[in-house]
């Protein structure tokens, strides 16, 4: 079992959701996060004064998958989230030791 974590541009969330559903993903957890990467920050002007904002709004998506699903889900996320510009985000995969479905107490891949 693996945990796929993706940090993407906020307006790409809906496309990512549709794409991963198509490859059989049944659930995801999302959160609003802020961060910086190679894009750098941006400038805002209030009352003539410039403020530099280093952190940019992003959406972090977490999807637990079985080992067989990993490549298909990665492709789906990358294809959906890509705009070919700096700041499209990152996806990474980590090992998941155990998963439990709380309602049924199922363990392992069945619980994913």
């Amino acid at each position: 079992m693996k945990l796929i974590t993706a940090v993407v541009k906020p307006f790409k969330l809906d496309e990512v959701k549709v794409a991963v559903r198509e490859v059989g993903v049944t659930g995801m957890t999302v959160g609003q996060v802020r961060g910086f990467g190679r894009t750098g920050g941006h400038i805002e002007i209030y009352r003539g004064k410039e403020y530099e904002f280093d952190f940019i709004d992003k959406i972090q998506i977490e999807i637990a998958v079985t080992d067989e699903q990993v490549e298909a889900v990665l492709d789906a996320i990358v294809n959906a989230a890509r705009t070919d510009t700096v700041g499209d985000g990152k996806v990474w995969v980590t090992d998941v030791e155990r998963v439990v479905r709380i309602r049924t107490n199922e363990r392992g891949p069945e619980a994913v």
Partner: protein
Amino acid sequence: MLFAVTNIPYPSWLNPADNTWQLVAATLVGLMSLPGLAVLYGGLVRKKWIVNTMLMVFAGFSITLVVWMLWGYNMAFGPISHFGATGSFWSGFVGHFTPLATASSEQGQAVSGANSLIPFHFPTATLAYFQFVFAAITPLLFLGGLVGRLKFKAWLLIVPLWVTLIYCVNACLLWGGGFFAQKGAVDYSGGYVIHLSAGVAAFTGAAILGPRRWQDRENAFPSNLMMVAVGAGILWLGWNGFNGGDPFYAGADAASAVLNTNVATAVGVLTWLLMDMFFSKQKKPTFLGAINGMLCGLVAITPSAGWVNGTGAIFVGLIAASIVWVAWNYLSRIRPFSKVDDALGVVYTHGIAGLVGGLLVGILADPKMTEYGVAGAHFKGAGGFSVAGWFYGHSFHQLWEQFLAALWIIGYTAVGTAAIFYLVKFILGGLRESDETLAIGDLAIHEEEAFPEPTFGEPVLSPSHSHSDNV
């Protein structure tokens, strides 16, 4: 006729139209403070300072009304105490320290040195409330220079002292029939008494109080631009009462004051907007810039609203917004302006705009703009009243009187505000909240925040829940 004249339930000197307009105008001006300034300032400060700022606005408004009833109104607009020989400065300095508390003092016909030309057609309660909302907004304006570090207790002492010792004196001198009024200086609705004075007080107070934490200055981005829009809109339209109420009659001059106020303001907005687009470093039209331009127009037309014609009003908006734009962007880099943390820039949009507007009366006032146009047996004075600026009267007399009054307002407000701030500092052992408190803001001072968020699940059990009476 269903009703005989004798059945009208108010005295013959009372004119219901004048009384209605005066009460409506006063309410419009009151709305400029609550919620106008509360949400405008709340929107301009950092999120962590919203509650503190709004509470200071509501508390200041309340304190001023109590002061006004107990002694303020009579000091500013009651019969003048003649401390010196007739015609001397001290014979026209301030009124009596007496309350406005009896039935007759509320319901009797308004009488005031503010208008010795023709009698008021409404009771003293109307005039007192109308004048109160002006007195109340003045400390709330200079609050803009002090937000983000002023101790709450200090504010509760500064407001009554400042209204009593600074506002009432300046109001009496220029409006209450005092020295400068007798000399011929004019201030239609408070370009000097309110805005120039508030700008000077903000600057002086901020200098004594010291700057905000550097973190708060560096990250001074506003909390909510939509709230700024709400507050600014209420200010603009509320100004119809501010300037439209100051002839004290629902007549032609009230109408022209309203129209002139709006056109000067519109020109102020556009002037700042265009200067931002073509002369600013970023070359961007900004909403908060436009709001600054709006304030410049509103403030600068205030001393002349019913005494300039439409062309004059356009020039007032243009000149004031241009000068304040340059001051905002360049003068602010020069000492002492660069050294004083006037948090919301009150010294520019109120101080400098008020000064420019007050001097422009001496240049642009059109003698054909008649404030009081009826003469006759029923009226106390000669009747007609208008003001002639240099442009129409070909004399610098009015400009000179305006200049002298401005010098007084700047000097007296600066010295008096400094004295009050040092006194309050001495009484409380300091004017600032502690550094630990300043780092947190609203929650540390009030145990409240502007956007309370019990983030996950149910709120935790509060201490009052576990109290035996509540179980």
